[in-house]
């Protein structure tokens, strides 16, 4: 994976940059010591790392605007950062950039239950948004597995999803408004506590723009009343095909579970060894969760049970109480941790039409054999969002490259069957060069023209999302190279 060469002219002006940043930020908010900037050298795509020139941790929107004005003036690229949990390298710095972290901006600014929204600073973690309101019976729906660590800032930039978005939607469906600072240092308020845009839906294109259009400092989020209760059921099958067919039947039957999670055998084995959740050893496991009152839950679970039984499950286990529910989720929730224990892994997240599940799982199995690397699958089956985890050993020369090549094949397969490269993790640097598989040059050009509008100098997270070749001319704009 290539990154652009750092601009020596910018690097040579580090002292001046630091001095100017100190004028708009408190001392401890400017990090320029090369030992300390290492803390910002990578995100959760740890295969790639590069300490930034400087990292800054502003505490207010005004400070963010001050930093951006200086960087704009000096032609210094800026990489916004939330908690650094991106799996796509979205927050990966270059040696000539300023990392702008919002981790000190964690306040809840307004909570309004009557109108069902919360306004927060975007450095706040996803889980602590729900934490601020759950005592009053509300929650914030999008729940990435990384929710303990990841920030609303990163969630908005990546349009993150989670296990429960089958019912509640992803970030973009739960985002009502933002305060955002452009690369030029202009503060914009977009959307608010009302619904939908009166004019063009700018909020819609900002969400998911991977930190390339502006730095989001505040967010107005839709909050929802907690359901009366929720209960998962665990269903085991002796083939992936049958499990896939069962998913499709559940959806068609009009039951709308809040989550349908799928694990294949390699994943079940790893999770079981790691978390000892008591999973049956079989080819495919589904965790289906439904919500409502006790009677409503019972009714839905009865319907799901009836459908599942038509597919001869090897296991059908309803959670009798909260403890059992916890155990059912335990294995799934520790899947990534379990994988991390046995191996290095690369987590893909292509989405496919649900109808293509059996085909895609079979092809992944074949590809895994061809490349000689194991692949475990754990994913959000209700919406076709795959998470193939390719296991490799980073210390064996060549394995990372083999892993990336296999990953690319799997993602191409997702696109071929009518799906896409990434369902929730974003493009970042990881899938940047595969964008041409999904989009024509004209389609990419249309997207880059949107960046031209918000950031004409291409200083904000410039080396992400678009193939470097496609964005090259734009990244060489006068201000970006002048410095």
């Amino acid at each position: 994976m290539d990154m652009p060469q750092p601009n020596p002219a910018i690097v040579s002006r580090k002292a001046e940059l630091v001095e100017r940043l100190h004028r708009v930020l408190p001392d401890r908010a400017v990090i320029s010591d090369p030992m300390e900037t290492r803390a910002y050298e990578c995100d959760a795509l740890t295969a790639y790392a590069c300490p930034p020139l400087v990292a800054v941790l502003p505490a207010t929107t005004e400070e963010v605007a001050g930093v951006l004005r200086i960087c704009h003036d000096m032609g210094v690229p800026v990489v916004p950062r939330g908690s650094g949990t991106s799996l796509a390298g979205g927050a990966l710095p270059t040696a000539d950039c300023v990392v702008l972290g919002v981790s000190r901006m964690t306040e809840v600014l307004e909570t309004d239950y009557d109108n069902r929204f919360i306004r927060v600073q975007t450095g706040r973690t996803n889980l602590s948004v729900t934490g601020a309101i759950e005592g009053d019976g509300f929650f914030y729906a999008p729940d990435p597995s990384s929710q303990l660590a990841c920030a609303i800032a990163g969630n908005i930039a990546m349009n993150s999803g989670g296990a429960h978005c089958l019912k509640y939607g992803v970030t973009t469906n739960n985002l009502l408004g933002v305060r955002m600072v452009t690369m030029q240092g202009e503060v914009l308020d977009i959307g608010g506590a009302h619904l939908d845009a009166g004019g063009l839906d700018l909020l819609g294109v900002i969400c998911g723009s991977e930190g390339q259009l502006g730095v989001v400092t505040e967010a107005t989020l839709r909050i929802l009343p907690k359901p009366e209760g929720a209960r998962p059921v665990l269903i085991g099958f002796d083939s992936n095909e049958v499990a896939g067919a069962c998913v499709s039947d559940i959806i068609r039957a009009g039951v709308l579970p809040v989550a349908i999670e799928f694990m294949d055998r390699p994943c079940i084995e790893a999770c079981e060894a790691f978390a000892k959740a008591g999973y049956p050893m079989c080819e495919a496991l589904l965790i289906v969760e439904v919500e409502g009152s006790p009677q409503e839950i019972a009714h839905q679970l009865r319907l799901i049970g009836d459908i599942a039984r038509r597919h001869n499950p090897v296991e059908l286990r309803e959670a009798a109480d909260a403890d059992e529910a916890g155990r059912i989720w335990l294995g799934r929730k520790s899947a990534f941790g379990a994988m991390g224990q046995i191996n290095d892994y690369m987590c893909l997240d292509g989405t496919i039409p649900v109808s293509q599940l059996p085909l895609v799982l079979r092809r992944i199995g074949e590809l895994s054999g061809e490349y000689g690397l194991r692949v475990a699958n754990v994913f959000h089956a209700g919406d076709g969002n795959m998470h193939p985890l390719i296991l490799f050993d980073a210390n064996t020369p060549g394995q990372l490259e083999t892993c990336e090549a296999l990953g690319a094949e799997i993602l191409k397969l997702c696109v071929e069957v009518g799906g896409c490269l990434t369902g929730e993790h974003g493009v970042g640097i990881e899938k940047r060069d595969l964008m041409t598989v999904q989009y024509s040059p004209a389609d990419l050009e249309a997207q880059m023209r949107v960046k031209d509008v918000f950031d004409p100098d291409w200083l904000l997270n410039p080396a992400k999302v678009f193939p470097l070749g496609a964005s090259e001319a734009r990244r060489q704009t006068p201000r970006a190279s002048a410095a």
Partner: protein
Amino acid sequence: MLTPKDERDLAQAVADAKGPLWVQGGGTRASGRTPQGEVLSVAGLTGITLYEPGALTMVAQAGTPLAEIEAALEAEGQMLPFEPYSLGGVTGVSGDTTIGGVFATNASGARRVQVGAARDLLLGVRFVDGRGEVLRNGGRVMKNVTGYDLVKLLAGSRGALGVLTEVAFKVLPKPEAVGHVTLTGLTDAEAVQAMAAAMGSPFDVSGAVHAPAGIEEEPTTLLRVEGFADSVTYRTERLRDLLSRFGAGQIGTSVEPWQAGRALSAFSQTVRGPGGATWFVSVKPGDAPALMARIAGAHDCLYDYDWAGGRIRIHAMADQRALHDALRAEVAAIGGHATLIHAPSDLADAVPLTQPEPAPLAALSERLRAQFDPRGILNPGVMG
């Protein structure tokens, strides 16, 4: 009138255009604006391209009549979740509303509060930009963050960025049963409080509307619950109990109020005939009653609340310009937007159809339009 038969024809027509184009689906919108330039009809691009009920997805050509889409869904026991309704009753124009027109206006009905707006269900688009270039964004899968989300940007853009040629969207199973709790006699403020209490409950309310002029003259508040029959019974009862401080709620299972509700309540019955003007207003629900006290206090109009108060629909036969100016100013001050949906041409030609944006946002929108349509030929003036 240009009537291309397929996407390629349409792209050619745009590329060849020498002046402004007036993009039209079924033409049921009829804002009242005097058309500018040549009409470009998308009605020739029809047909459902793909329908996978088990994956809850459909793909259709943009000119496909809404009625055809709904019939195909009905046959599989499914529906368009966001509940678009035809405004024929308001605009007085008959014709076939098209699926492209629905997404181009982000048209959403009562269920918006539960499942999201048209923009939330739109998964992918094909469109022709102002250069005549065919572009694609999104896809047909439920989750997709590959590149920028131009799907959301195109939803509701009313032809100003491009002409939609194909749309892919999510559908949902039709609920087995519908029930509602009806409250009568509430003031606007009480009704919005009652709707907030309902929306803040765990009973998964799928519609909350209030008609101050009521169905039979008495202010009426309707709360809808959908799902499996037993569950609907349970939830309507719980909801009625929860709302008892607002009066004795009546439980009903008839779907009629909601079928009427597609063109909702007394509003649609009264609103007929030429000469009327209609606005859709989007504000924070809690702001709505005070806003309407000021507007309706000073100007003769009919109105009702949808989306638990978050959307107000206003209709006026007279005093339209004064009402319009007051409404735009009030809404700008509290946050939100007021769209002029339909009006006699003297008003529709004189004012922006959409709420003017603060200068920095207006500048961004303007530059976006210039990127997608450098010649400024697509629906000039329709989006502010």
